[in-house]
């Protein structure tokens, strides 16, 4: 099964584990299975309509899956996927408290 590396802010949802093994033949399947096994993760990875959030970056090894085949990127036994945050913000839009 592929392994998924979990960034620090999300480890609270994987019982502190920095790395989780999940089933799946593609990156999308592996992430979906991860969110099913750790349901509190889902809202931080996916938008309400089920798309990966724009600041959630997924790397297979050293490569961003956006530059491979996206969520259809194949993963095999021993492959390592990493979820890597990008950090964005700014004052535009409504204030939020």
């Amino acid at each position, binding site marked *: 099964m592929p392994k998924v590396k979990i*960034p*620090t*802010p*999300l480890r*609270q949802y994987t019982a502190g584990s920095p790395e989780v093994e999940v089933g799946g033949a593609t990156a999308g399947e592996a992430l979906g299975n991860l969110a099913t096994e750790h349901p*509190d993760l889902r*809202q*931080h990875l996916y938008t309400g309509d089920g798309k990966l959030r*724009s*600041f959630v*970056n997924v*790397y297979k090894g050293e490569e*961003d899956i956006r530059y491979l085949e996206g969520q259809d990127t194949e993963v095999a036994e021993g492959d390592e996927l*990493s979820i*890597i*945050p*990008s*950090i*964005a*913000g*700014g*004052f*535009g*839009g*409504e*204030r*939020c*408290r």
Partner: protein
Amino acid sequence: MPLKIGAGDVDRIHEHAREAYPEECAGALVGIDTGGVRVVVDVWLADNTHEEERRRRFLIEPLAVKRFEEQAEEKGMGLLGFYHSHPDHPAEPSEYDREHAWPGYSYVIASVSAENVEDMRSWTLRGDRSGYEEEPIVG
């Protein structure tokens, strides 16, 4: 949980915010989470690589975040969160901030004008993403 930032690190954040004005600045807060208080040991400046509208947007690239995480761990510390500036706007998170925030990190926001840093406050995203809790900044 209170966020402890020493005067020297506060000065560096303020200086970065003033230098970047009227654009937004951003950087990483590195330190130790003691369980009762988060102690910032160092602040690391980041490049705002947002392609446009840097007066109201900032972006720290994923590989920069990964490098910060690895460097913090090498030093026996952790990535506690990030700071950014709001030029001519309050030190409060925006809806755009909330949409892009991660749980577990501290988000320090400095309100900066042409003259000075007017205010600085720290926020954490609620676990259900519904909004923020303010955390006190202590010296």
